[in-house]
């Protein structure tokens, strides 16, 4: 892994993804273990979000070194996840007696979950065009 460029916007993306992996993962684990019956679907979706962020972190790391294939899939998966869960939480509120990380498109996190995959995809497009570090 010596060919990872030292600087660039991906450093900020990686910081966000690491942060959200921990935030979503810790939240999901606490809620799944202490109050499982309140909203199991929402809590499992939070755990899925955490796994998505962990995979996204790895995908962006790889893409920053020029291996963009995984990120091209993973960031779209993440965007689809946010949009699906966000829409479902508004259309079918009964399924979400308690909030999930992606409820209302990530309103509990200042909508950062909705912005992250879009920012990631924009960066990826730039990265594919010219893999030079900035």
């Amino acid at each position, binding site marked *: 892994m010596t060919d990872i460029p*030292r600087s*660039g916007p991906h*450093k*900020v993306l990686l*910081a966000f993804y*690491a*942060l959200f992996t921990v935030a979503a993962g810790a939240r999901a684990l*606490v809620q799944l273990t202490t109050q499982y019956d309140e909203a199991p679907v929402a809590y499992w979706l939070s755990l899925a979000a955490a796994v998505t962020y962990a995979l996204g972190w790895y995908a962006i790391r790889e893409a920053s070194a020029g291996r963009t294939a995984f990120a091209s899939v993973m960031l779209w998966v993440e965007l689809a996840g946010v949009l699906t869960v966000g829409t479902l939480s508004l259309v079918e509120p009964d399924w979400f007696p308690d909030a999930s990380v992606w409820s209302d498109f990530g309103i509990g996190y200042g909508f950062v979950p909705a912005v992250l995959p879009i920012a990631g995809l924009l960066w990826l497009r730039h990265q594919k065009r010219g893999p030079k570090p*900035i």
Partner: protein
Amino acid sequence: MPSVSTQITFIVVGYAVLVALLALVVALRKQERPGWLDQLAWMLEALLVVRALAGLGALGDGPPSTSTYVGYLIASVCVLPIAMQSIKDDRAVWSSAVIAVAAVAVGVVAVRLEMTA
């Protein structure tokens, strides 16, 4: 009169906002990351350690501890060192933005600490 840990939290949040804003200004002016920004970030970390110790001290005589509260305490002191490690050899423009993100994150964690205390 709010408790000691609450007062420290006010200082932490205010200082975190200051660090985040300064880091953002440095990044937007496309400057290399100056040494003083690192020092400000480590000062913030020192404040967070003080806040965490105050929080741990209050666990004994306060309301029953929740796993959430302890989780936030641990997270509050871990975020900045990990962020600083990730930009250790990188003083380019974007490294300041990483500090801004980390500072906002610990600010939010500090606010959540008060809400779960």
